[in-house]
Structure formats: structure tokens, C-alpha cells
């Protein structure tokens, strides 16, 4: 056999052995996890529960790079990282609470009540991948990364905090006026409160109107419609993207620029259809 081919075959064999060894380590870790979970009292569990434990184990392992070391060591290191993240999430939640507007919808208020329960219900040792609280309130931009566990919870809190900070840039009475325009009983609806305000602000930014105000009188609406009509779609899209950057800068919310860009991207096709 040529030398090169022999080396390739050898390296494949090593790879196969490595991956077999890692699989064995994985099963041993899962077996230990099941044993700990049942306190050694149950040798079998419903398949769904074992799958949960496995998902939790994989989520924990993903906290550290594969090069970290043996799986059991990686698992413990991952657990420590999750504990640190959970403490960070607590601080984040405190910021969300402090910045929460007082004109919240029912789903917003209910969600604020439910969020602290995460820390009571979160069991990182066995169910680290879960987000054990019912979050009703929808964000202006739905999270698309589907992050699990405390990572997913933190992503949600970060977005919610940013929305709070955005809303806090405007006078509450002006915001309520916009929300009432959406629906007179807006506070009963499952709507996001920041979205209509962001859309209004983006429209004004596009028209280069002062950004502290949120009104759209008939003249402004007419100008906006004319802009949509007289520009190709690509240009409209670009103009809204620039409006998002302008708005983020004007409000001193540069960290939220990608968020506003996403809102703008979702908004302009709808704004054109409205006409």
C-alpha cells in the first residue's frame, strides 16, 4: 500500500476510534446524569425524560469548546458557566424591571411578573436547556436563533431591555396616543408596545422630520406615500435602513441599530401595502 494511503487509512482509524470513545464517554455521562436525577432509585425512565436529560447535557457541553478536555470535565465546566450566566440574567432582569414603562399591556405586565420565576424553576443540573417560564409578551423582532436555556432567556431580556430603553426616549403620553391609535383598548391586546412607536419614528426619520415627536399628520402621510410611489423598492428598502441608523444615532441607542434595521426591514413592505 502506498505510504500516503496508509497514513490516510491510519488517520481514519484514529478518527473512528476517537469518535467511538467520545460516544462512550457521552453515554457514561448520561448514565451518571440519570443516576443522579433518580437518586439511584429508578433504573429506567420514560424516553422523553431521558431525551430531556440528554438535551440538557448537550446544552451544557456546548458551553465549552470540544478541545476543553474529557467530557465529564467539560460538563462540570459548562455547569459553572451556566451558573455565572444565571447570575448575569438576574442583573439583566433587574434592569428590565427598573426601565419598564408604566403603561404596559396586560401581556407585558403579566410577563414581567412571570420572568422572576425563571430563577426559581430553572434546574441547570438536569434541565439546563429549558426556559421554565411562560413568556407571553412578544418582542418587536422575534428571536430567530432559538437559543436554549439561560442563553435564550438572556437574549429575550436583552431585547426587552433595549425596547424599554427605546420607549423611555419618548414621552409616555405620546406613546400611549400611538398605542391607542392601534387599538383603543391596546392594553388588553397581545401586541408589542415598542413596534408601532418604532415604525412611526422610522417613518419620521425617513422624512427627515424631528425625531423627538411621533405625530404623522396628513401632510407627512402624503409625503411618505409619495416617497413609496416614486421610488423603486430597492431604494425604499435602502432609505428605511438609513432611517434606522439615523434614528439609533439620534436616540443615542447605537447598540440597537441592528434591531431597528430589522424592524425597518419588516416594516417597509407592509407600509407600502397599506397604501
Amino acid at each position: 500500500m502506498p505510504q500516503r494511503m496508509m497514513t490516510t487509512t491510519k488517520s481514519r482509524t484514529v478518527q473512528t476510534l476517537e469518535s467511538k470513545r467520545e460516544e462512550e464517554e457521552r453515554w457514561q455521562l448520561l448514565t451518571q446524569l440519570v443516576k443522579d436525577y433518580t437518586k439511584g432509585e429508578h433504573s429506567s425512565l420514560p424516553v422523553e425524560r431521558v431525551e430531556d436529560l440528554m438535551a440538557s447535557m448537550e446544552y451544557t457541553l456546548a458551553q465549552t469548546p470540544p478541545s476543553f478536555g474529557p467530557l465529564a470535565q467539560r460538563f462540570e465546566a459548562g455547569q459553572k458557566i451556566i451558573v455565572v450566566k444565571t447570575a448575569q440574567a438576574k442583573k439583566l432582569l433587574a434592569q428590565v424591571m427598573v426601565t419598564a414603562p408604566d403603561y404596559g399591556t396586560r401581556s407585558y405586565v403579566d410577563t414581567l411578573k412571570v420572568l422572576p420565576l425563571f430563577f426559581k424553576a430553572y434546574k441547570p443540573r438536569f434541565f439546563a436547556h429549558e426556559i421554565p417560564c411562560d413568556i407571553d409578551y412578544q418582542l418587536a423582532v422575534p428571536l430567530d436563533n432559538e437559543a436554549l436555556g439561560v442563553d435564550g432567556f438572556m437574549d429575550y431580556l436583552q431585547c426587552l431591555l433595549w425596547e424599554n430603553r427605546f420607549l423611555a426616549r419618548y414621552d409616555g403620553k405620546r406613546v400611549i396616543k400611538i398605542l391607542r391609535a392601534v387599538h383603543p383598548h391596546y392594553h388588553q391586546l397581545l401586541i408589542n408596545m415598542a413596534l408601532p412607536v418604532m415604525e412611526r419614528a422610522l417613518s419620521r426619520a425617513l422624512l427627515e422630520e424631528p425625531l423627538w415627536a411621533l405625530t404623522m399628520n396628513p401632510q407627512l402621510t402624503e409625503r411618505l406615500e409619495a416617497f413609496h410611489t416614486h421610488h423603486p423598492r430597492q431604494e425604499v428598502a435602502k432609505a428605511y435602513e438609513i432611517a434606522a441608523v439615523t434614528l439609533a444615532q439620534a436616540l443615542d441607542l447605537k447598540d440597537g441599530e441592528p434591531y431597528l434595521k430589522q424592524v425597518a426591514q419588516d416594516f417597509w413592505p407592509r407600509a407600502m401595502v397599506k397604501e
Partner: protein
Amino acid sequence: MDNALVKQWQENNAQVLERELYGLNEESQHYGLTLSHEGAQALCQGREAALVDTGRMELGPGVLPKIVRALLDSPYLVQRNYEETLYAFQNLFYTVKGELFENYSDDALIQIMVTAFNGQCGGDLAALSGYLEETRCHKE
């Protein structure tokens, strides 16, 4: 869960269990009971089928060696019905574990089952099944 992986794991588990079961013959011989290789194999296969049927998964050697040890001194167990009884007892264990006794530890459930099997059920597994159902209903 990766089915091929689960299958491989179950096979490895079955080999370990088979060896452990066969090793129990040293203890069971004192009671005039011996498990053949084929019998141990059949028990492992039965265990796998029972787990699939009841939607459960077992990591490690499982509950079977405990069942064997708990039944060794049963007055109703003789060489003629040894393997057959273990097979049926194991099936019943997994069935009632999932359906009726999920919160009971393996040891507690085995004790309930063995006590009833040796006592009021007179070594009759159908009677034991009925007894367990009734017991659970009364507790609820």
C-alpha cells in the same frame, strides 16, 4: 435521539446484563435454579421489548438482576418455571412501573411485587397484575 446510537448502546448494555445474569447462577444454584445462556439472552431481549412497549429507557444494567435476587427464595419458583417467570415478572414490572407506580423506587416496587407474588397471589402472575392495579387504585 439518534436511533442507531441508542441501538448500539442497548446492545452494549445487553451484553453486560447478560454476563451479570449468567453470573447470578452462582447464587441461584443454592436454590436449585440456573439460568441458561439462551435464557439470559431471552431475558435481555424481553427487557428490550418491554422497554420499547412501555416507552422507557434504561441506562446501565437495569433492574433485572435485582428482580432475580428478590425472587430467588420464592416458594413458587422452580427450575421448570424459572426463566418463564422471570420473563413475565420483568414485563409486569415495566408495565406497572410506567402506568401505576412511576413514583415508587425500583426497590420499593420489587418488594411490593415479590411480597404479593409469594403471599396472597400464590405465585400467580395474573393475580399479581390484578393485585397491583387494585392496590394503586386504592391509593389514589
